[in-house]
């Protein structure tokens, strides 16, 4: 979207066109684009297939909240709706790496440095 862009623009783009990041499955589709070079349709189909949902579901927070909870993919972190027993942050990325069957750099580094490799 262009670095240096001012406040407010991100929200307008997000509301107009975004999959929705970790509110839905935008981070998962983005990951397939960013590190695997997949175009949008291919990336959506790949992620949907791995999650057992349809590409349409990927931008639906109602569907994806349940899917993320079941798979331990992390979700919006709110102290009003605490989820202390659920995976989040780096823990969630371990699960994302396993389910999407892609290496995630920081997860691999974590394993090395924590003696888990």
């Amino acid at each position, binding site marked *: 979207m262009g670095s240096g862009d001012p406040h407010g623009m991100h929200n307008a783009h997000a509301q107009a066109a*975004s999959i929705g990041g970790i509110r839905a499955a935008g*981070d998962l589709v983005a990951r397939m684009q960013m590190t695997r070079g997949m175009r*949008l349709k291919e990336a959506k189909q790949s992620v949907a297939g791995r999650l057992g949902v349809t590409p349409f579901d990927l931008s639906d927070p109602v569907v994806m909240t349940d899917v993320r909870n079941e798979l331990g993919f992390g979700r919006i972190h709110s102290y009003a709706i605490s989820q202390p027993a659920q995976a989040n942050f780096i823990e969630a990325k371990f699960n994302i790496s396993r389910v999407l069957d892609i290496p995630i750099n920081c997860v691999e580094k974590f394993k090395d440095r924590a003696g888990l490799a």
Partner: protein
Amino acid sequence: MNEETRLPTRMGDGTFVCLTRSEIRADLVAGSEAATKRAKVPLLGDDEIDHLLEIYASPVRFIGVDVGEEIVLSCDGTGMKTHATRIQDLQSYEQWMGADLLELCVGDYSLKVVRTILAYEAQYMHDAQLCTIAPLQYGVMPNLGLYSKPDGPCDNWNELLPLGKIAEARAAEEEAVEMAVADMVKLADSQWEAGADAIDWDTTGASGDPEFLAALRATKIIREKYPDMGVELGMAGEFVLGMHGELEWGGKRLAGLWPKDQLLLAQEAGATMFGPVVNVNTGKSLAWNMARAIALIKPCMDVATIPVHPNAGMGVGGVPMFVHLPSDAVCRAAKSFVELLHVDGL
């Protein structure tokens, strides 16, 4: 006598202007023709003009893509100490806005500045990766100009060129390219070791063809060295300026390339995402600018094998050149790119 209703729309500088539906349509046709005249791209079809007209003649304040047609936002500049620490900024964008991906960067954003603080930036990436979920890249702009005097060690080609010292200017640019490539690879080395998912070369080509060459060369090296590391290559402008004029990549002259050929070279070098840019003309309406942007970027979509994320930020991609962007303009640009070009992201 019937008088057409005048509709509120905006100019490229963001100011409101009231135009009739016929005037907006005329601007769309003129924008498409402007693209064709300069870049020899095909004109937009009547169906495409009509589609844009529905978007730009709509009186609604906010507009969006159809449900199910959402795209990825490459949220550049999300971790640059906007309102808290950089990690808190990243978390805010991830948690509050639902950013599809995140980017750590420093405010200056220039490669030559970052090269002096690689270890600190790597530490920050390491820490940020522990407390975020979305893919997280590190972003810089190559900004080759900073490698020239008085900011850098190379002779200043912008001073040499007006003196007619063409060979000296070219030699200085070539020297700067070597330094920038080495710095880009060192940055990628440190960020990969810290756990980064990708590197973003933002505003590539701002210093013309030498800078584009540096980004292509670094991308190729990094992707061979780290096949799982993404490289996003975003452009600075619609046209690669020939500051050198004789530089090539794979036999292709870099000066004068338009988005389609820029994309072909970026994906050949190994980039995993490409961000074409079309600059905004502030003296024309947004309808004119959007039609021109769509026409210039459209040829990319048929040949792309990697995701295409047109830049739709301040002053590019039909978004006004104004610091606090009006949402009615931003959402129209997003909808236009998604519905007319079927872009992979923005």
